[in-house]
């Protein structure tokens, strides 16, 4: 009797114990053991590749780092890096830029990606090929895709200019003025990441049973209602994770900005670019400062996503 039930974890809360026939302690211990077993391999890789380097980065941010041609040396603990960061007007500007950039790009990506997924889900024939085609932007090497857009936006050789001309919209130098440059950046960025959102949402959509939709249609529900009342609530875990991760990534996007805008124009600095320019961008390389900026960025993202994280973590594995 007890053996069949050990396959099933009890529902959340202390009341769960009542569903367990047999020895609840043994069951709990077994679950804990399995939990550890299943997560330790992943933890090993993550610890090696990210945890130790992050720890070192934190250390760097508190040190006076002296960079020479042969390497760098640590000259004593200091909080000067942090005070330099937080008092800096460039940093404040970059912060505002990053927040605005993130809000816009995440919204566009998620909305467009979901639309794409909905359309793809309805396609029966040719879905594979269509998906493959839409996947290509995401699959390009990031630097290459950024350079491709640089080529498209190029004032002399670029096709974007030609298109604007053909549509009778004059001849703007896209990367010249700030407003159009920022929009151009966002287009290049969103272009690459929207297919990713679409794939994830599509995977979620495909998981849903068809009977629900048939029932809804019989009841006369329109597409809009169906989406908000049925699809979205069922896929809330998937959307939640997707939005959180999108925010995290767009907050620290680097390559597209680096390639299309560079270190010269501090009007298009987001926090990653600013950090990089301080660490490597001039002859006066400041590893400590760069690390401090990166750490502050991390904390900021943590704060922003804390609300969602706490909500997820509190519930018993069902978001």
């Amino acid at each position, binding site marked *: 009797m007890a053996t069949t039930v050990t*396959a099933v*974890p009890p529902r959340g809360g202390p009341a769960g114990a009542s569903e367990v026939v047999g020895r609840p302690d043994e069951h709990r211990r077994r679950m804990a053991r399995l939990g*550890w077993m299943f997560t330790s391999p992943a933890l090993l890789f993550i610890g090696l590749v*990210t945890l130790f380097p992050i720890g070192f*980065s934190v250390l760097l941010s508190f040190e006076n780092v002296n960079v020479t041609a042969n390497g760098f040396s640590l000259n004593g603990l200091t909080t000067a890096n942090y005070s330099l960061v937080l008092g800096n007007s460039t940093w404040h500007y970059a912060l505002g830029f990053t927040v605005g950039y993130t809000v816009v790009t995440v919204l566009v990506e998620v909305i467009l990606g979901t639309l794409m997924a909905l359309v793809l889900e309805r396609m029966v024939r040719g879905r594979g090929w269509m998906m493959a085609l839409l*996947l290509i*932007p995401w699959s390009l*090497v990031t630097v290459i895709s950024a350079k491709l857009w640089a080529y498209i936006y190029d004032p002399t050789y670029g096709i974007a200019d*030609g298109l604007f001309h053909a549509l009778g919209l004059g001849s703007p130098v896209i990367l010249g003025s700030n407003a159009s440059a920022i929009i151009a950046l966002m287009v290049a960025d969103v272009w690459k990441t929207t297919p990713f959102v679409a794939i994830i949402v599509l995977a979620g959509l*495909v998981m849903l049973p068809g009977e629900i939709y048939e029932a809804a249609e019989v009841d006369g529900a329109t597409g809009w209602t169906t989406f908000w009342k049925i699809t979205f609530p069922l896929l809330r875990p998937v959307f939640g994770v997707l939005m959180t991760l999108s925010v995290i990534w767009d907050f620290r996007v680097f390559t597209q900005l680096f390639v299309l805008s560079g270190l010269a124009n501090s009007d298009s600095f987001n926090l990653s670019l600013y950090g990089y320019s301080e660490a490597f961008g001039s002859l006066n390389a400041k590893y400590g400062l760069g690390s401090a900026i990166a750490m502050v960025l991390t904390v900021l993202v943590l704060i922003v996503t804390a609300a969602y994280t706490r909500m997820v973590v509190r519930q018993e594995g069902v978001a």
Partner: protein
Amino acid sequence: MRSRRLRRIALNTAGIVVFVVSAFPVFWMVSTAFKPNQEIFSSTPHPVPFHPTLRHFDFVLNGGIAGVSFWHYFVNSLVVAIATVVVSGLLALLAATAVARFRFRFRTTFLILLLVVQMVPCEALVIPMFIDLKKLDLLNSLVGLTVVYVGFALPFGTWMLRGFVAAVPRELEEAAALDGAGPIRTFFRVLLPLVAPGLVATSIFSFITAWNELIFAYTFLKDQGKATLPIMLQFFFGRSGNDWGPIMAASTLLTLPVIAFFLLVQRRMVSGLVAGAVKG
């Protein structure tokens, strides 16, 4: 009735616009790959090459960039990418199932860890990771690079799969348990088919992450013989202007394996319920 029609038209138009904007740069890339240099660098660009040429493809495939043949780079990239997909897929699935279904004290910490780890900009990690790998003697090795890529793909993969596993209603597993299925059987017959689309999505992500990653490959691999395709691409970017022809040709060639991988796994992107895990 009319509003339904309008809505459909609006949705279709939006779909077409999105499709065109997504596809056009790709089309532009491919078309440039076939253009001779005069057309690439002309001030009046045209969508379709007037005198298509295979010169750039020939240069990429047979040119031997930095003394190493294209296929050598290709094999390096492929091996690393496939290894990353397999290892990270397996570990992420295990960890995700544990996090979504089991209760253990470390669970909360693990989840937060996974999330926080992604918040750190990876550019900041290059130097510390270099030191890390040097100590383990994994520098300048494809194995070391795979370890790095798996480490990067795991947090995202686990979080994503957790979302998918969490979306599978527990009643299904409980029903299977009541029918007498043990935990392993439940996993393979019930959970796995339902989560298969999620697994496909995360494996595509892992593949692409490994396939087109540049910074870490460039920093950690010293031998040209171990270099991956993105490193090869860097050779076409010069200080005095870029060789767009070979760049576009190489990029086009690079997307083909991704598409192939995708077409291979996407057949699993069908409703898990159709796979017959649950009746009724």
